């Protein structure tokens, strides 16, 4: 079952209420998204730690072949 962009944003928003979140449906198929998350809590974290935090927010939706979310290209950063 493909996910809606809004669902992805809502899930991320739960964990990062004040983040700037941009979701793009890359292929128009509800399966390949990119997400850019800019949040103050990322300051002092390296990229791996930032991505892990977002992955955690997605609560297993990205878990391989069983996940609803097939491909999410992730970009994370702290606000400049």
């Amino acid at each position, binding site marked *: 079952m493909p996910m809606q962009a809004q669902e992805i944003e809502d899930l991320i928003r739960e964990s990062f209420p004040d983040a700037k979140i941009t979701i793009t449906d890359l292929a128009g198929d509800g399966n390949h998204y990119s997400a850019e998350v800019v949040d103050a809590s990322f300051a002092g974290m390296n990229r*791996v730690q930032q*991505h*892990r935090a977002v*992955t955690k927010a997605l609560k297993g939706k*990205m878990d*391989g072949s069983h996940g609803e979310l097939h491909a999410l*290209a*992730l*970009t994370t950063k702290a606000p400049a």
Partner: protein
Amino acid sequence: MPRGTTAPTTRKKIDMSDANARISETIQANNVVLFMKGTKSMPQCGFSSRVAGVLNYMGVDFADVNVLADEEIRHGIKDFSDWPTIPQLYVKGEFVGGCDIITEMTLSGELDTLFDENDVTYDKDAADKIREANG
């Protein structure tokens, strides 16, 4: 003992620690390791292909582990690194990132820095060419 008589929970535990041990051994024995779908000469997934392609183009000597050929490693690597996706790049035993992070680091020059710091040989001109083509 027939396989069916072994308690599933016990078997799973043994498999996991075995996977962890094998992963540890691989990333200690090789300076640069890419866990990927397919091999570096024949990747079987676009994301794996992108990272292997960058490393190949930069002339980096790296070990490739085809997770499609090893179910135990395929699942074990995700727990090992607390990272849900493949490919996964390790340098000097440290997890560096997956496809998005390696792409970003290649374009920003951070990957060059990481290789410099860890005495990993690579072709700087090739890295610059990637940046020129994607700048």
